């Protein structure tokens, strides 16, 4: 268990935004949240799952909803309502603890993302409990069902959802996780498109083997590497790639970017024209909140569950969807998905077909054409970080020296 400095928290969020693959919420707002907490004297401890007492109640707080702008009618309808004094996530976490009749002992992020991991960090800080060095995705994911807790059959209920006006709902029974998501989204539609949620309450002992462990410190190492490379005038994209055990997939200039709101998801495409070693090639990325699949010169290059991260080439600042714009110089990194996603069950809910690619899954490290990044491939395989699979080794194995 260690107390995180603000610098470390910011590193973690930057790394989470890289692993957020275009989604996972706004890094800028996430940073605002954790800075405000730090200014208020709140600190967060990071704890490995093994460090918790077996009976510790762990919950996942997060925000659910849509980024779609509100209509003037909606703005008018919400204007008279009071705004709760604390975040809806925190209200939900407290309501769930009250419903269960015991205190929350630790918080686990629902995914890695600049905004969503910040929500968990902030909830942990305000509840005065540690954040788990783990999460149920090892990346950002578009839907509630894309969770290792879902794959492992950990019940999503009882769960609490709170609006920013302070209304609380406790979903005590639900047919399945899909229905849980439908109910929360329905309430978000009448709640400024945003609900704070706390779900998957479980004692620590029940979570063993069911989370991507070490993922938060893994993100922290990526963020730290970027920060240090920026300060040292080194290549921050290369630093992120090396720290995350990934591959450089493409480098170029954005030529076209488009998106639309589709049933609450941000759906769109990015086209990139190659520069440097990729001159003469094109790259095409499709996203549904997160990047789903990428094509190099018209051929499938990488698909979920592997990670497709788009960074600004000069600064390694992660590009959040749908903010890519023509003329932007970007680099695309690929990171292997955590082992949980590479199982048959994992691929059945979050594989190429979910991304709309009618082909079997080929791991990112096996995708590269011969001779095109041998060193990268070795890096990906040799790295036992969360991206390489939880079973591959403990935190020590994740450091590459």
């Amino acid at each position, binding site marked *: 268990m260690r107390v995180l400095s603000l610098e470390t928290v910011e590193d973690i969020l930057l790394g989470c935004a890289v692993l957020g693959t275009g989604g996972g919420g706004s890094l800028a707002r996430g940073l605002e949240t954790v800075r405000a907490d730090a200014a208020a004297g709140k600190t967060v401890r990071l704890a490995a799952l093994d460090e918790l007492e077996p009976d510790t109640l762990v919950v996942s707080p997060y925000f659910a909803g849509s980024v779609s702008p509100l209509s003037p009618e909606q703005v008018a309808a919400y204007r008279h309502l009071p705004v709760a004094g604390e975040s809806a996530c925190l209200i939900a976490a407290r309501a769930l603890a009250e419903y269960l009749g015991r205190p929350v002992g630790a918080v686990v992020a629902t995914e890695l993302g600049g905004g969503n991991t910040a929500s968990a960090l902030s909830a942990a800080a305000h509840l005065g409990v540690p954040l788990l060095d783990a999460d149920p995705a090892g990346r950002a994911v578009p839907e509630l069902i894309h969770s290792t807790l879902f794959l492992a059959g950990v019940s999503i209920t009882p769960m609490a959802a709170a609006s920013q006006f302070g*209304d609380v*709902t*406790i979903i*005590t029974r639900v*047919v399945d996780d899909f229905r849980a998501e*439908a*109910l929360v989204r*329905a*309430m978000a539609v009448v*709640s400024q498109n945003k609900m704070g949620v706390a779900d998957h309450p479980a004692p620590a002992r029940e979570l063993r083997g069911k989370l991507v462990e070490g993922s938060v410190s893994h993100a922290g190492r990526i963020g730290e590497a970027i920060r240090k490379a920026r300060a040292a005038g080194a290549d921050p994209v290369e630093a992120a790639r090396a720290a995350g055990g990934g591959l450089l997939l493409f480098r170029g200039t954005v030529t076209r970017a488009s998106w639309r709101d589709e049933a609450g998801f941000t759906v769109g495409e990015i086209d990139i024209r190659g520069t440097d070693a990729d001159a003469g090639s094109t790259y095409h990325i499709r996203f549904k909140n997160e990047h789903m699949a990428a094509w190099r010169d018209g051929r499938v290059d990488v698909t979920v569950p592997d990670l497709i991260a788009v960074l600004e080439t000069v600064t390694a600042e992660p590009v959040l969807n749908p903010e890519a714009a023509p003329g932007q110089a970007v680099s695309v990194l690929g990171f292997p998905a955590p082992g949980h996603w590479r199982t048959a069950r994992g691929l059945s809910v979050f594989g190429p077909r979910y991304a709309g690619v009618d082909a079997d899954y080929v791991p990112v490290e096996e995708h590269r054409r011969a001779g095109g990044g041998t060193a990268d491939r070795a890096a990906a395989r040799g790295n036992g970080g969360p991206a390489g699979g939880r079973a591959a080794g403990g935190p020590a194995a994740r450091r590459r020296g």
Partner: protein
Amino acid sequence: MRELDFQAVRDILDGCTTLATGGGGDPARGLALLEAEYSAGRKVRLMDLDELPDDALTCSPYFTGSIAPVSPEREARLARLPRAAEPEAYLALRALERHLGISFTATVSIEYGGMNTAVAMATAARAGIPVVDADAAGRAVPDLEFSTYFISGLRIDPMALATRFGETVVLENVVDDFRAEDLVRSLAVASGGMIATVDHPAHGRDCKAGAVIRGALSYAERVGRAKREALAAGRDPVEAAREAGSGQLVFEGVAERDASWEDRGGFCYGETHLLGTGPFEGSRYRIWFKNENMVAWRNDEVDVTAPDLICVLERDTGRPVNNPWVKEGMRVAVLAFPAPKEWLTPRGREILTPRFFGFDFDPRPIGKRTPA
């Protein structure tokens, strides 16, 4: 306390439908819920309000719905889900009991209606508790906040909901009844259009102090029974209902055309137009509704307004006509009944009035005029 035979249950439901001012749900569905309980040997017991201990807890089970159509995609997604093994309202009642760590002593009907009064009775029978001889509206109403609970400042929450798939949700700390309504309707839409709701957990002392309308179910029963007996004896069921409910016959006529209506935000808005017959020959009558009848004009002059009850019945059978099903050529009678006195309190006057629905005039209580 009185155990009701099925005839009494039918009379109450028919009275509630007659007094439901065009809304309140489908009495056939309501009756089916009660038939299921009676055929399983469970009976409805009607408890006098004064029999309710001060510290006993009551609640109101009913259905919240939206007539907004469910999209085919959502319908397909919902079709694969398992159905609840027990009635949804009963599941919601048990969920609220578990959440509060208490047992309810009785249920209270949330509004008059062929469906919702039946839900209060059937859920009570299922749970082995009585239904109180009371109602929280004394008519049918379009919005959750139109209740005597609201008038007396009683909170709607904690409340519990259950879907037809057996899912349960508890709501608490809602900002106000309007927020509760928005959240519940959104969950109803996501669950196929209807959701069972159990709300307003209330103490006996509050119910007795005016949070609910005393004797409301036996009043409805008298109206229903009077109609039934009149029909059996070959007398006029409309006049029998009027007399039993102390109402006024305000119009008789023929529907000029089908009621015109539209769905706005899940509510059914529209108008009924009548041409007078018999003593009303040469007059016209127009009724505006939002789910329920709210304002009526005779020859373009305001005649009856909410909160008073405007009830359209088939002229010969006395059968109540739900909105928006008045059809061209239908022969109907319009009865007006005075609103329960709770609606005439200062707070009651503020909410259920023509002004709430966008009209620029105050209520014209029928109790203050000589019958037509």
